């Protein structure tokens, strides 16, 4: 059955007719053409489908579209709206934290949420926070380094811990 919901994605609010059984991931990719968010496991475990809902990392593949109504959704496309990359994105590229790229959107958005609440995380704190994001390519070391470097660049914290 269809219902009309207001969905706010990357700052834009749109009205959409959605079926109850459509997931947020379905809507983002198939209806809105925002294919930066990926379908990985489909069961909310791998993190590839992570978007921010009101700033919090959320698995869009197990979120019904109707549940996302009224929330501010940020996808990876929303990080560089005018083409200028976010520092987290730049550090991922610079530090070799991207190989196939499939996990990357999810990681970057999760990292963004982490740095918003913990501007100067230790590697342990980073690993703990992103443990819902799986990477099969990189072995995570470069990812943690990229997030650490981005934290320093974003400079909201103190000097880097040892």
């Amino acid at each position, binding site marked *: *059955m269809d*219902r009309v919901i207001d969905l706010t994605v990357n700052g834009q609010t749109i009205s959409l007719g959605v*079926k*109850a*059984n*459509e*997931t947020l991931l*379905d809507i983002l990719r198939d209806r809105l053409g925002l294919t930066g968010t990926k*379908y990985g*496991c*489909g*069961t*909310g*475990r791998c*993190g590839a489908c*992570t978007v921010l*809902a009101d700033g*919090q*990392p*959320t*698995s869009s593949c*197990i*979120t*019904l579209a*109707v*549940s996302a109504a009224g929330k501010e959704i940020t996808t990876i496309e929303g990080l560089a709206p005018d083409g200028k990359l976010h520092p987290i994105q730049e550090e991922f590229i610079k530090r070799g934290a991207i190989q196939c790229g499939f996990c990357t959107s999810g990681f970057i958005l*999760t990292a963004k*949420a982490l740095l918003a609440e913990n501007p100067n995380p230790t590697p342990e704190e980073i690993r703990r*926070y*992103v*443990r*819902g994001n799986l990477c099969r390519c990189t072995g995570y070391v470069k990812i943690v380094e990229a997030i650490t470097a981005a934290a320093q660049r974003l400079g909201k914290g103190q000097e880097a811990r040892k």
Partner: protein
Amino acid sequence: MGTRVLRDFEYLKPISVDETVSLLERYGNEASILAGGTDLLVSLKLLRISPKYLIDITGIGELGGVTGGENETRIGATTTIKELARSVLIYEKYTALGEAAQQMGTTQMRQVATIGGNLCRASAGADTAPPLLALKARAEIYRRTGGRTIPLAEFFIGPGQSALTPGEILTAITIPAPAPHTGSSFIRINGTVSELPQLSAAATVVTENDQCTSARIALGAVAPTPVRARQAEKLLISKELNREVVEAAAHKVTEEISPRTSFRSSADYRRDVAAVIVKRALIKAYERSRGAPSG
């Protein structure tokens, strides 16, 4: 594993508990409750269940939130694991529950998963169950004709089976205020954090002048339901919890549990490691009850 397409269902979002229980009574087994959805959506995608109606309870304010009182703390059923993990009140008074909330799941899951969902799914390995059993929690249940409150131990009937009958909803968990010099601890043995644990244990210890006056030990994923180890608990009373006493209790636990071999772990592993984590949890709970800084 998993499918791209969910089967069709009708989505309902009641605004009150009364409306919810009316819907539950009307639709019975054809309805499923949606809170965080971290388990429900997976069950739907894996075609384990096919409810005709999904009843979204996340819009009902009275089902949420942690309310501390002098005699007890009330945790609404839709309180998220993240809220529990971040709650200073929970960590200070009911450390084992705070630790469970911190150790279970991923950031994404903890954001939306709820204590009610964890308990009502009634998995033997439900992470919040051993701490709550060790903390003497009670379950508040409501139906159209009224409410009832039962000890949490009576809430778990069998594997995946809670005491809720059609038309009933879990509205809250209540935990009595801890006695002075109470310490608790929870340990989870992961296969991976995003899955149920291989096994888990929680311990609560109350001491007076370094002697244990009461203790509770509860375990997950070592029996058809979350369980207490009541015989082992008795071995701790009126004793100082030195290594010998703790090891005796831990050994007793292995005689009381009935672990199975499943795809997550073997019965042997569960039995052996149960002794280890019970020992660690008791030592930590004992330290905390005596005011030692938690490590």
